[in-house]
């Protein structure tokens, strides 16, 4: 058994002391001192699948684009068609390099006709902000980094709406998935309430002022409101297994500057027909050349063993054909699952491959992704 601990200087969210007080295990995540788990990863994962869980996601970045040409700037920088957005709507999208690979995946929120909020990842914040700023230069719009203004909380799970409803006068049933409204939450006016998340469940992300007292108060009030549904605080460990079961992409894993949109299987969010944007030409070339040569697939490990990030994937003949980019036991599905890049000829469902798990070659098969899809809700 060996363990390691490191203590570099890390950035902290306004809730850092709260996490430590709750006894969370803290880790360095993209330069941030973040909770990886509180009561236990499996319990936290299951709370989100069956009840409700609360995440501090304040490490995420927020870029605001404001001005008459902010839509044009976004259309130039992001691959999805932001022109289709209505005020109050959010959209999954990505920023691409000219070669059609990923700067980052993002969520674009249309605040008004001339005002957009782009939520970006923590580890790529500086890079993303620089990218938006330089590429938006030729447009008449103003780019601001609002990351430090907000504490962002994610309330996720089938009981998320019932929990949050106790704390707001906004009728949450009127907010559809990937839409948002402004309203009073815990007495705080003009709070952005978005029906978004990264767990594959129903849920909300709220943006509140980032001062410590306010952040702590809202955190406590959400936990109190969710008490009857056995809400628990959840860390990055559960966030990762939840997003993996739902096959949601993670930067430096399923998407990166060496992976293109088709390989990552995110082409349904990429609107080549909307007009030119950064990366579009390269992607057109990929199509003209017959499509990507490798693809992201879901693997279910058939034999005993856990396929983990970085493990190599082999064909029956013993030739290495790819590698696992994310892999873990799936707490809700109770299977060992993984996402891996393999050549197109191995990407069809039920194809069998082998994952090298330390000294053993373990059988795995290609299965549909997402591995988990939440049941349709009645409301």
């Amino acid at each position, binding site marked *: *058994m*060996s*363990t390691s601990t490191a203590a570099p200087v890390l950035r902290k969210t306004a809730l850092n002391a709260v996490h430590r007080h709750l006894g969370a295990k803290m880790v360095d995540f993209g330069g941030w001192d973040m909770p*990886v788990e509180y009561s*236990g990863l499996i319990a936290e994962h299951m709370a989100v699948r069956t009840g409700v869980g609360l995440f501090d996601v304040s490490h995420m970045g927020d870029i605001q684009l404001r001005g008459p040409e902010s839509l044009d700037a976004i259309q130039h920088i992001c691959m999805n068609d932001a022109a289709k957005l209505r005020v109050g709507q959010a959209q999954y999208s990505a920023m691409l390099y000219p070669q059609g690979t990923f700067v980052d995946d993002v969520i674009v929120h249309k605040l008004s006709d001339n005002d957009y909020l782009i939520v970006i990842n923590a580890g790529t914040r500086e890079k993303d902000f620089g990218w938006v700023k330089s590429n938006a230069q030729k447009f008449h719009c103003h780019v601001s980094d609002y990351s430090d203004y907000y504490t962002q909380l994610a309330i996720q799970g089938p009981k998320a709406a019932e929990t949050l409803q106790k704390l707001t006068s906004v009728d949450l049933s009127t907010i559809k998935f990937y839409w948002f409204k402004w309203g009073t939450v815990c007495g705080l006016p003009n709070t952005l309430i978005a029906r978004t998340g990264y767990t594959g469940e129903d849920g909300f992300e709220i943006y509140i002022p980032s001062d410590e007292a306010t952040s702590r108060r809202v955190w406590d009030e959400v936990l109190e409101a969710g008490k009857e549904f056995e809400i628990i605080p959840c860390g990055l*460990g559960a966030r*990762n297994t939840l997003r993996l079961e739902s096959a949601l992409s993670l930067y430096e894993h399923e998407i990166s500057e060496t992976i293109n949109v088709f390989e990552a299987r995110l082409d349904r969010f990429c609107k080549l027909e909307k007009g030119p944007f950064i990366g579009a030409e390269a992607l057109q070339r990929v199509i003209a050349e017959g499509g990507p040569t490798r693809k992201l697939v879901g693997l279910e490990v058939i034999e005993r063993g856990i396929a*983990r990030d970085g493990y190599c994937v082999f064909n029956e003949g013993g030739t290495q054909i790819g590698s696992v980019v994310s892999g873990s*036991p799936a707490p809700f599905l109770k299977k060992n699952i993984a996402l891996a890049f393999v050549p197109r000829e191995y990407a069809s469902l039920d194809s069998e491959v082998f994952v090298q798990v*330390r000294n053993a070659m373990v059988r795995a098969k290609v299965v549909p992704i997402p591995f988990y899809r939440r049941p349709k809700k009645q409301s």
Partner: protein
Amino acid sequence: MAYPANYRYTREHEWIEVTGKVGKIGITDYAQDSLGDIVFVESPKVGAAVTKGEVFGSVESVKAVSDLYSPVTGTVTEVNEELASAPEKINTSAHEAWIMKVELSDPAEVDSLLSAADYEKFIAEETGH
């Protein structure tokens, strides 16, 4: 966390309880807590030779895999089969949920292992508390 005084410990976070010539070996409460929810224990086979300081198996939690290092040299006489179906026993009772028993080829090796007090001091230093 209570570390039994009659056990000896390694800096890699294994414990051993020696009775006569046989040592019962597991991982410490600190180790299980660092790993989180344990989902799989890879044990050696009965009859296998293990060497002090060398890997004899591994333990996997949801988020990580860690090698297990033998505190002593000897031959495996028994493995805890219960852990195959209930690896989480290590999370609930690390100091009872033993992984293997080893017949020691050199019982004097145990003298070089940490006492409970030394081990507690060691993890206090490692965690910076």
